[in-house]
């Protein structure tokens, strides 16, 4: 199946995200077709500068996607997801704003009638599972690997409609579909401080340790994330860590392993906390 894909800026550089996404999507028969000529979504920064500018950045993405015949936009990054959702909500509710945005985009000959639905790849996989070529075989992930799903804060708050926002379980459901029984823990949506990682690394450390401890306390020995920022922050944030480190992966990497894809195709080498800690 073909989806309108918005990679976002962090995607390319993210440790093995692209590789694993490509590998898994290839297997499942998902074609992520990049929205041509896409631009940065502006993330939270743009909105804190000027709402109008931020809405033009995002509005342009919607307009492009629509013109290229897509009915929804698929992302792989919480920040993009959150930003686009926020924009969509604002533009849907207020014709005046939409009007403003269109006036700017007119220069480019772009017109936005209404924002498109925004989905995370995770949601799409879950929703369209029956229509994908989902592998039949049993899970190849070794017994000893105890996966903990980590959502971060922006996938479920504040603009989103993921059920049980503070303790979601859609990622757990997806993992279950791949034969992985995720550990039940309470750190799922705790903020990892990514956006302040540079300015206040000290404060972030506390948050990161809290998340890792919370996961370890429930027997988790592998974190899986759905966002480049979360992954990077949790991964590198453990470098100074005294106690046991826990590898931090992308959900597509874990799915890949479960589906029995060759590890080298999943970019696992790029992880800072190496997987061999848990015998992988």
């Amino acid at each position, binding site marked *: 199946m073909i989806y309108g894909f918005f990679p976002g800026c962090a995607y390319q550089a993210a440790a093995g995200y692209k590789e694993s996404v490509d590998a898994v999507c290839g297997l499942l028969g998902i074609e992520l077709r990049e929205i041509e000529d896409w631009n940065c979504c502006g993330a939270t920064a743009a909105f804190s500068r000027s709402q109008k500018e931020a809405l033009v950045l995002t509005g342009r993405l919607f307009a492009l996607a629509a013109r290229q015949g897509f009915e929804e936009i698929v992302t792989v990054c919480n920040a993009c997801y959150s930003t686009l959702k926020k924009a969509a909500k604002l533009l849907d509710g207020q014709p005046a704003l939409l009007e403003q945005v269109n006036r700017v985009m007119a220069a480019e000959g772009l017109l936005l009638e209404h924002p498109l639905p925004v989905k995370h790849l995770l949601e799409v996989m879950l929703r369209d599972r029956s229509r994908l070529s989902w592998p039949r075989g049993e899970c190849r992930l070794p017994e000893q690997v105890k996966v903990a799903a980590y959502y971060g804060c922006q996938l479920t708050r504040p603009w989103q409609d993921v059920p*049980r*926002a*503070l*303790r979601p379980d859609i990622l757990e459901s997806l993992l279950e579909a791949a034969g992985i029984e995720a550990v039940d823990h*309470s*750190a799922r949506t*705790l903020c990892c401080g990514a956006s302040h990682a540079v300015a206040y690394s000290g404060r972030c450390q506390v948050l990161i340790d*809290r998340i890792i*401890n*919370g996961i370890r*306390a429930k027997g988790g020995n592998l974190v899986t994330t759905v966002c480049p920022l979360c992954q990077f922050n949790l991964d590198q944030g453990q470098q100074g860590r005294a106690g046991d480190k826990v590898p931090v992966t992308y959900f597509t990497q874990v799915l890949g392993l479960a589906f029995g894809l060759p590890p080298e195709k999943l970019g696992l080498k790029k992880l800072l906390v190496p997987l061999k800690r848990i015998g992988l």
Partner: protein
Amino acid sequence: MNKEIPRIGVYVCHCGMNIAPRVDVEQVAEFASRLDHVVVARDYKFMCSNPGQELIVEDIKAHNLNRVVVASCSPRMHEATFRKACRKAGLSPYNFQMANIREQASWVTDDSRLATAKAKDLVAAAVGRVAFHRPLQTRRVEVNKSVLVIGGGIAGIQAAISAADAGYKVYLVEREPSIGGHMAKFDKTFPTLDCAACIMTPKMVIAGQHENIELLTYSEVVGLEGFVGNYKARILKKPRYVDEDKCTGCGTCMEKCPTRRVPSGFEEGLAFRPAIYSPFPQAVPKTPVIDAEHCRLLAKNKRCGVCAKFCEADAIDFDQKPQYLDLTVGAVIVATGFAAFDPSSMVQYGYGIYPEVYTSLQFERLNNATGPTAGQIVMKNGQVPRKVAIIHCVGSRDRNHLPYCSRVCCMYSLKFAHLVREKTGAEVWSFYIDMRSPGKLYEEFYNRVQAEGVHAVRGKVAMVTDIVDDPGRGSLTVVAENTLTGRNLRLPVDMVILSVGLQPAEGAGEVARMAGISADGDGWFTELHAKLAPVNTPTAGIFLAGCCQGPKDIPDTVAQAMAAAGQATALLAAGTVETRAEISSIDPDICSGCKSCLQVCPYNAIYFDEGRQVAVVNDALCQGCGSCSATCPSSAAAVAQFNDSQVMAEIDAILA
């Protein structure tokens, strides 16, 4: 056609400063004096006062008035008052009409010119209409000398006892196997800390043994119709599968029942019960019930019947069927109580996720000598908590859940705080939005609990999590902001108690529909008047007691229950009620016998006289809704006080 020429007196009330400054009452009175048939028109400071009423009485005599109009407040306020005055002067109370120039003019209009103009119109309307009023005949009908009480909580029990003590037959209907309601689950009661069981159990026993009270437990009201003094109620008795007359309440069946692990509703899921059970030791009646859903024989129809084998009284009866009882009662007291808010929807507090997060009702059971821990405040692992957090207003004062204050959670939370301190010596942290302790000895209780070293933090808790920074110091962390210090707080605790809010009981809406009473936006039943008729409903003969009317603590509930019983018994004591005068009648000379009115009458209050081929109103059943009059093209059917001439005269006068 008007034979007698109307002689109308008009009285415009200042209502102190409520009407007068905004509406130019002198001008209105002067205007009224020029209206057709108006003989005298005056304005006066307080028409409802004694001198005000005397004014009317004297004028009626002096000017031999045969119609009276008072322009003041809403007829829902003082119509009765002025009708009495008319009657006192020998004038039919129905030759009276009120113009509502306060609620509908002075209070809702800024511009006094417009307010005055409106007042004039409303007075003209009343004058125009009253000319067509006629003296009405009413009959007195017998009041059935029994009361139906719906709901067997403390409110229902108290109301039943009070009415029964007054010597009237009472039917007390409770849908659970035993009466007692929520209060039966409590341990101590604020602010006096006397034990709930000690004050509740005797009441239950009295209700159970009172010769005037017929207990109908495990039963529900499924139909209610009729009118004041004469209600017909249909009760569904659910099959107990145990013969109440034979059962001795020995309890052997419960010990022997092989099905043992059914979560106990009474214990709020903290304990299990057998399939045949009596919810709690002091249950009234003691007769257990078989829960057909979990009974091996009834549900899975396995070969079992152990209870029957061991029952010496031979009281088990698997063939019991639902029974319907039809009662006739003079009055109904609705006491359907409340339901505790279910906090599972507030994921951030982890109820149902973390074993050491309890609801207030669970904590009551934890405290209760007959509860799952025999009154020990211990965690699931049997250990005594060292640090306990109590979160107020869970679900309450929250736009996403219950917008209103539960009125009790501050006080019972303080009670919990005290009990924890007293029984365990544990550190107690109470998180509140505002501390509300309005009531006799409540503030004192608050001070006392503070003195006991309870930490009260002003701030709504953000979340409860099992992620702890120091595992040694408690299995849960409460994350909150202390809004007085502005500091964030990560408090490690062993146990969290959620002080949940109150909402209307399940099925309250159904009861409201059956009884023809209304509920407010939150589902609480609406009283006739917030201040002056707090236990009455718009439907005569139906009264409210307890939380069904709004969140209440026990003292208020009991007080209201007694008040409701008082109102009900007063009605019964009167022996008869005056029939409604404002009912429909059908002029046989005009009726064409088309039977349309029979089709639209919601009370089957119209029958067809085959001999004369005309429809006839049964004035005992007619409620005066006017479905028939509006349907009858020849206006053969007309509701007294609301017939075509009267209503159209009103419209005519407004537009004149």
